[in-house]
């Protein structure tokens, strides 16, 4: 079967990373599976390599010692350590990655077999069992590869492994509706209540997102709303009030988690030669975060954990 067919029937997909021992992505000890592809372009994104599903070659300049092994082995005659590296000519054969003694090169967005992923989950399961953990699908936007997600979730169901999902909310409801029944909890991002601001910072308005939030809630999946808290974007009281009202009116029972902005993704922008897309924002202070939470407290919205 050709890779494209496998992608269609969901037995293969594009995975950024599998991260075990995740303790901030739901109950217990979890294995978080980052699936590539996302329709938003948030300016603060910490995983910009997950925006698209095509393969990419990362170059971590701070590790490179200039030995030129990569250039020597490249069958296309490219120099992946060079500033003017032409990614359009790269076949992503990985020869340079294997040859680099400093681990300065890395392929991202690898195609993976659902079976291989399930094998890893099977190994981690002993830790889920003792901690009440499970698998969390994240991204990118995990609902983008819904066929792949569907087959992975079926595998989790067979193993009796709990499934949580982290979504930005921007996906086609009709294509994913059937998946809701198999999800134990959803972390759902609401980045801004004003559609114009939302479009300015993420490239899309928030209509689909807010609709999807209501639909998920109606389908009965427990939800936690997450806000990436960013001083320049969504910290003002009006916006937080509006979010809290929306939650009270449309998502009763859901909880809130505020995630203060961080710059840990910065290095990735240069490694993936995406420096042009990088924006710097301000991390809210602890006091600002506390004030933000107090707004949700006023609406009697419980905090996550």
């Amino acid at each position, binding site marked *: 079967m050709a890779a494209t067919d496998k992608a269609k029937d969901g037995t293969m997909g594009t995975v950024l990373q599998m991260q075990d021992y995740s303790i901030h992505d739901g109950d217990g000890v979890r294995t978080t599976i980052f699936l590539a592809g996302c329709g938003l372009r948030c300016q603060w994104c910490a995983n910009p390599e997950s925006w698209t599903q095509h393969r990419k070659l990362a170059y971590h300049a701070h590790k490179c010692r200039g030995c030129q*092994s990569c250039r020597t082995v490249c069958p296309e005659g490219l120099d992946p350590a060079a500033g003017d590296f032409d990614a359009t000519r790269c076949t992503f054969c990985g020869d340079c990655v294997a040859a680099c003694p400093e681990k300065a090169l890395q392929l991202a967005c690898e195609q993976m077999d659902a079976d291989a992923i399930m094998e890893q989950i099977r190994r981690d399961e002993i830790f889920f069992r003792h901690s009440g953990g499970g698998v969390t699908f994240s991204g990118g936007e995990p609902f983008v590869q819904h066929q792949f997600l569907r087959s992975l979730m079926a595998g989790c169901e067979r193993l009796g492994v709990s499934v949580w999902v982290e979504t930005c909310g921007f996906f086609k409801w009709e294509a994913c509706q059937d998946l809701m029944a198999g999800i134990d909890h959803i972390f759902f991002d609401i980045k801004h209540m004003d559609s114009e601001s939302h479009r300015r910072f993420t490239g899309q308005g928030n209509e689909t997102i807010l609709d999807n939030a209501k639909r998920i809630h109606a389908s009965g999946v427990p939800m936690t709303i997450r806000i990436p808290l960013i001083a320049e974007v969504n910290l003002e009281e009006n916006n937080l009030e509006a979010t809290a009202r929306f939650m009270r009116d449309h998502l009763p029972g859901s909880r809130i988690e505020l995630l203060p902005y961080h710059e840990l993704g910065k290095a990735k922008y240069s490694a993936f030669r995406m420096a042009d897309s990088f924006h710097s924002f301000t991390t809210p202070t602890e006091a600002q975060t506390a004030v933000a939470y107090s707004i949700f407290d006023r609406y009697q919205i419980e905090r996550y954990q």
Partner: protein
Amino acid sequence: MLKTVTGVSERIERLRQNYVNTKPSICYERARLYTESHKRTEGKSVILRRAEAFHDFCAKFEVRIFEDELIVGTAGRFRRTGILTPEYSWKWVDKEMDTFPTRPQDPYLITPDQCATIRSEIFPYWHGKSLEEHFLAALPEETARIAVDTGIIDNDSKWRQAVGEITPDYEGHLFVKGYGGILKDAEEKLAALDYLNAEDIDRIDFYKATILSAKAIILLANRYADLAEGMAAEEQDDARKAELLEIARVCRRVPEYPPQSFHEATQFIWFVQLGGIITENPLALNPGRFDQFMYPYYAADMDSGKLDKAGAKELIHALWLKYSEWVWTISENTTGYFAGYNQFQNLTVGGKKRDGSDATNELTYLCLEATDEVRTHQPGLSVRVQSDCPQEFLYAVTDLVSKGTGFPAIHNDQAGTQMLLQAGYEPEDARDWNNCGCVVPHFRQTGQWTSAVNVNFAAAMEYALNEGKSRLTGEKMGLDAKPLASYASYQEIEDATFEQVGNLIHHSVVSTVIAQKLHAEMVPRPFLSTCIGHCLEEGRDLSRGGAKYNVGPVLTGIGLAVVANSLAVIKKLVFEDKVTTLAELDAAMNADWEGHDALRTKALAVVKYGNDDDYVDAIARDLANYYYRKTRAYKDNFGSPFNSAFMGISNYIPTGRIVGATPCGRKATKPITEGVSPYAGSDVKSPLAAMRSSAKMNHDVHTGGTLLNLRLSEDLVSTPKGKRDLGSIIRAYFSLGAFHVQFNTLSTDVLRKAQKNPEDYKDLLVRVAGYSTQFVNLSPEMQEAIIARSAHGSY
């Protein structure tokens, strides 16, 4: 300014500052008094001579009580004293003492005057008389060349030192009888013996030695009581005066009589420890299950209102400081294996009772808290986690882990019991285990050499790959082996490697049984034999098999992961992928990889042990199984089979120094690996994968213990959820049958800062391997090795 800690009284904080800021000093009083005594007792049986020497020390040593002390007694003139025991070995001291103050690892203060006195008045007597000299004379040449200060097989702590490795039986013996009772029993036994009965002659000497030893320790305690009374008479401060009078009262009672209060029991323990230190300068003289045998005294005093929690804590803190102040005097070679002024006094809490029910109690928690509060490197705090233990207990354990002290060592209760059953213990005794030294499961009525020999697996492999020779020196050290390029299959190489390991086991056994025989003849243990009831009943010394259980010596395998990783590289790159040849690999290793960068990159890319990949983990498992079978096939002088172990100590550094480059990509002389831990930095996936790899070794057969050290990024345990999750991970790991895990949770950042500003981080504890010690007390080389252990983080 050194950070002060919370939760301790001002007095304890002063004692603690003294401990942290004082360099240990050598006191030769013990050696001088023992030497004078031995000159006087020439001709008597050795066990009597040793008991008399101990008695002389207790009668003549000028006892001291230091400011603020609640628990009293030192083995020398200083609070932080190291003593000399020339009857075991004086040669290394003679050779090394001038550089004691300046050596990089574990320096001791000693003045040139002291050195001169030691050389003129003490050592001459011991020429030709020490255990070391007899051992070296008795060791066959072919064993000596690989066993003496080589790093190939190493047991110098068994012929330059006493054995230690005992857990006094407080619960069933010492606290029941007191030394007055032991004295009486010995006198009765003695009265029933007859010189006309040939078998009785040794027993007569044994009981005479027991009587002398019991009298000696009672005398020592009473001399402390006299001193405390004298000091009280002069004391201006009323509070201290009352304390001194209480100290005097306590020392009059214990250890002569069974203790009647928590304070008395605590001082009793310290006098026993002191007796052990004075007689042997021992490693691994373990307090044992403190929360069990101390609980009745704690509960009674709490009930009667005699004691409150703060008072109990202060006594525990004082005892922890006592365990930490004295130093186990060791040679520079030995410091490579046991770095950090460590005395390996293991104190075990939690687990099951003898009847199988959960053993945790209030004292269990006080011990965990005390270790966090005083931040001393001793006692080595171990916990037993049993499946049905309270969740609060597990939380207290991971909470202590989160403090970054490296404590506690966390053990699987069931696996420990299984190990003791396998070693032949009765089920109730097997449930009543404590740790000996670092991770060895042990029981208080046992005589065993729990750390008999370190066996360097990487050296064995080197001999298989290099025609039986050391790659660094070219000297023939192993069995004959053919040139690397002429091996026809992977299996042949694996077999040859295992065979070389087998040869090292053989020489380890030879070296051990010779030492065992000499110990029984030359350095019997009259004082420590008083701590095990069975010796008293049988009239037989510990060194002659007097304990209830005489378990075979433990051979510790070092470098399991390096060998598995290296064999996996050969299997994959040479025989499967055929991207290199044995000849090329041989050349690369001879060149220490210089000029073979591409090949080294490929070698490093082959999957390494610790990532839950059966390709390489299976090789480690097969080697561990082979090691177990081979080791168990030998018997010691008491007819007990030898035992295998993969435990720590800091042995992976000196053993690495003598091994050339290895096929796994490691460079020459770099550290190898400890216990069942992955190679530093090669467990790239996660601690969970490392645990799964480790659990594949059949832990329960390695009755000498197994050890897994992992570094955890501190943010994984910084929240209550993180601590709960780590508890669950530990449960999961143990459900796979694994025995031990211990975590360092310090960030690399903190360690780097400590390297730069050691003054500010004097009390920073890190996990070395099987134990914790002050980071700043480690040599730069050791510090780098700690930092190199990969820190696992996730977000």
